[in-house]
């Protein structure tokens, strides 16, 4: 048993007495040395159409396959002579021009699945496409490296699979105050207070009591640490803007949380895609810009890395309803202050060399991005979290 695990288990059994205080002090130092680097994950649910997000506007095949939904030059902001961003991403372009954005093209995985929930599971668990894993990659990060449940927080009502580990789960909360109020109440507080015997059994009931105590303390900790910090920054008045604002508040109040998880849904654009995607991408970009500015004003942007993904891209050829169907590879955005590789990380996907379904053939396995983030940003052993060794990329 490694030392950290030993400490964790023994503190769970509350036999902290047996651990010499100097060991505990050492543990604290080790934990703090890891720094305050944080990861913010933004999930675009429904399968964002990557080809109309980062557009190959010089490619004739693009317009041939997408005669009505293909974006004309005036719907695009050029990044270079061949590639442009959907014009609704103007706020993102401003971050791009400052060197804060790295766009990784053609990201996917072998034997792609075109079902939303399966593909989302694969992205969230980092499993192979024929594997069913019941724990998420951030959850497994928590299992080994998390100090408390609030080491990872999802800004939502319920917890995604990505945030569930084998032994530990992250915290999900849309509003720390509501969670705190729910966990409070005189009756529950008194039960907690009365629990003198902390040697709770290892049986299921003991597990429930431990979960109750952990929930109460995390809820209290998050609320009390963050309640004094209010964001002065204006965010777009929508659900996603609110999520990003809450995330910024938690970060700027220095809550000891390594990973934040947010999501924006509605990207399943089978019908009349253009207007819907435009609205959603704009919502995304405006909120992210506000978020970055908010963090910069509080000197926390330098320690924050933002990763944006979607469960799959969409078919190259548009469908009969002026939309697109489920596809495969997609682009991933990495946003941060000191990126090693700024701008376009790699070339756009080939539109001529497609698979049997007429979908893109992926070039970069998404798990190489996870491995890179785990190793170079969160500074942990990526193999332990991903259960496998992946080559790494060079964007941070």
């Amino acid at each position, binding site marked *: 048993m490694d030392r950290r695990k030993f400490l964790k288990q023994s503190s769970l059994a509350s036999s902290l007495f047996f651990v010499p205080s100097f060991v505990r002090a050492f543990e604290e130092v080790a934990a703090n040395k890891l720094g305050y680097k944080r990861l913010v994950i933004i999930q675009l649910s429904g399968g964002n159409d990557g080809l109309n997000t980062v557009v190959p506007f010089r490619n004739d095949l693009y317009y041939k396959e997408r005669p009505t939904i293909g974006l004309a030059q005036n719907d695009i902001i050029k990044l270079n002579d061949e590639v442009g961003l959907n014009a609704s991403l103007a706020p993102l372009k401003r971050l791009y021009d400052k060197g804060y954005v790295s766009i990784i093209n053609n990201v996917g995985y072998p034997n792609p699945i075109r079902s939303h*929930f*399966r593909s989302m*599971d694969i992205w969230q668990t980092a499993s192979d496409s*024929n594997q*069913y894993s*019941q724990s998420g990659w951030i959850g497994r990060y928590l299992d080994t490296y998390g100090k408390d*449940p609030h080491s990872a927080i999802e800004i939502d*009502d*319920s*917890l995604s*699979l990505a945030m*569930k580990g084998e032994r530990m*789960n*992250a*915290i*999900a*909360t849309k509003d720390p105050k509501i*969670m705190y109020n*729910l*966990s409070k*109440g*005189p*009756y*529950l507080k*008194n*039960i907690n*207070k*009365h*629990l*003198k*015997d902390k040697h*709770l059994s290892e*049986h*299921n*009931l003991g*597990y*429930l*009591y431990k*979960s*109750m105590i*952990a*929930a*109460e303390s*995390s*809820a209290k900790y998050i609320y009390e640490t963050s309640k004094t910090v209010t964001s002065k920054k204006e965010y777009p008045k929508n659900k996603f803007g609110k999520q990003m604002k809450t995330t910024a508040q938690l970060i700027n109040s220095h809550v000891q949380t390594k990973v934040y998880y947010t999501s924006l849904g509605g990207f399943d654009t089978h*019908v009349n895609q253009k207007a819907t995607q435009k609205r959603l991408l704009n919502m995304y970009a405006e909120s992210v810009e506000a978020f970055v500015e908010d963090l910069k004003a509080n000197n926390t942007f330098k320690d924050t890395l933002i990763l944006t993904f979607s469960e799959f891209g969409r078919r190259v050829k548009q469908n*009969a*309803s002026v939309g697109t169907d489920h596809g495969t590879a997609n682009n991933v955005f990495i946003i941060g202050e000191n990126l090693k590789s700024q701008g376009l990380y790699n070339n756009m996907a080939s539109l001529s060399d497609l698979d049997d379904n007429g979908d893109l053939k992926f070039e970069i396995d998404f798990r190489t991005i996870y491995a890179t983030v785990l190793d170079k940003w969160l500074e942990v052993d990526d193999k332990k979290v991903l259960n496998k060794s992946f080559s790494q990329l060079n964007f941070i």
Partner: protein
Amino acid sequence: MKANHIQHLYRRVGFGILPTALQNVSTKSKKQIVDDLIKASKDSTKLEVDISEIKDIVGGLMMSGSKLDADTRRKIQKISRQKQLELNVSWINRLANSSEVLREKMTLFWANHFVCEDNSIVYIQQFNNTLREHALGNFGDFVKAISKEAAMTKYLNTKQNRKQKPNENFARELMELFTLGEGHYTEEDIKESARAFTGYSHNLRGEFVFRKRQHDYTDKTFFEKTGNFTGEDVIDIILEKRQCAKYICTKIYRYFVNDAVSETHVNEMTDIFFKDYNIENLMQFVFTSNWFYDEKNIGSKIKSPVEFLVGLKYTVPVMFKNSRQVLQIQRLLGQTLLDPPNVAGWKGGRNWIDSNTIVLRLKLPSLLLNNAYISNVKNGNEDGFMDTNKEEFKKKYGRRFNTETDWNYFEKHFKNVLLQDMDSHILACPVNEDAKTYLQSLAKVSKQEYCIQLMSLPEYQMC
């Protein structure tokens, strides 16, 4: 039969037993009670919401032989979404009120074994009733019926499984999740058996259609046997393996007896089940065995969200004025019926519990049944502000969960129960000593208030 054994039995076979019902059966023997429970589930009552509107559209299309256009499809999908919500709510109500208690609990169990979802209400309702129909029948017939369900041929892509281009999805899950468990077959077995299921499809009404031209009639070699096997043959060959019976018995043991499996007990079960794959006989064996009533099996399991919610409704009938809230609660607790996370289903046990769900579970009884109020006045005092508090809480939380509770029903069924004996009826396990000390320091305002206090304990999560 001992009262606490009857309660244990009913908590596992159903969602608990009310004191009045307990009184009625208390003089009976174990065998008699189990037999009665099985007899009560002889019939299978379909769970149905009105889908005539969709059936009419589909019937018209099939009569005229025209294809489904995009507008009609969207219209069907819209009705379907609404009807799925209705089906979900009806299912929850059925679980809380059915007289076919065992059959309904088994249906819930099988829904997390033969995991499936579909956005068509027609297919998923039919699938749900197939689970119900076979829930206590012959396991072999059950698997064959499932393999031919429209929703399943869609969910695991048997529909796309064609001679020229086999799709292995169903064959893989058939063995990995439905019959044998991981590691008891080879990749080659999957490839060969997938070919036996080629040509499986369905029509718009959800009826099974076998597309002969898509079926691969050449020989397949499966588990050392070679022949021109059909899908049914493949299932029969799987059933010949004792591992199949053992795999199912293990799962049933985990669900009905204990998360921690006893190899000896599962072997006893397998001996019974392997003989003829009769599910009813297997369940009778489990519920009449002595070990089922071992101390370590009583009150040792964590309720699933549905067991928690239905159990609550069973003790104190509660109606939701907005049926979407029934769905919302399931979602927040992490188990929405008809919407499983993936083909492996809900993991169950401790996985139900995270910091959000535990906090919500502790608060829900008071939120749903008692205007969010939990009495906490000290012994010797009167809860003088209770009514004012409740009014205030109702204003504050009423909007969140708009419910109507029938406390008269509760009072009627708990009339002959002494207040100090309430624990044994509401909880499945003894209360933690420290929590008990606190509980005993509080005033016993009324049975209703005490019931809420008990339901707000971690102990109430156990069954």
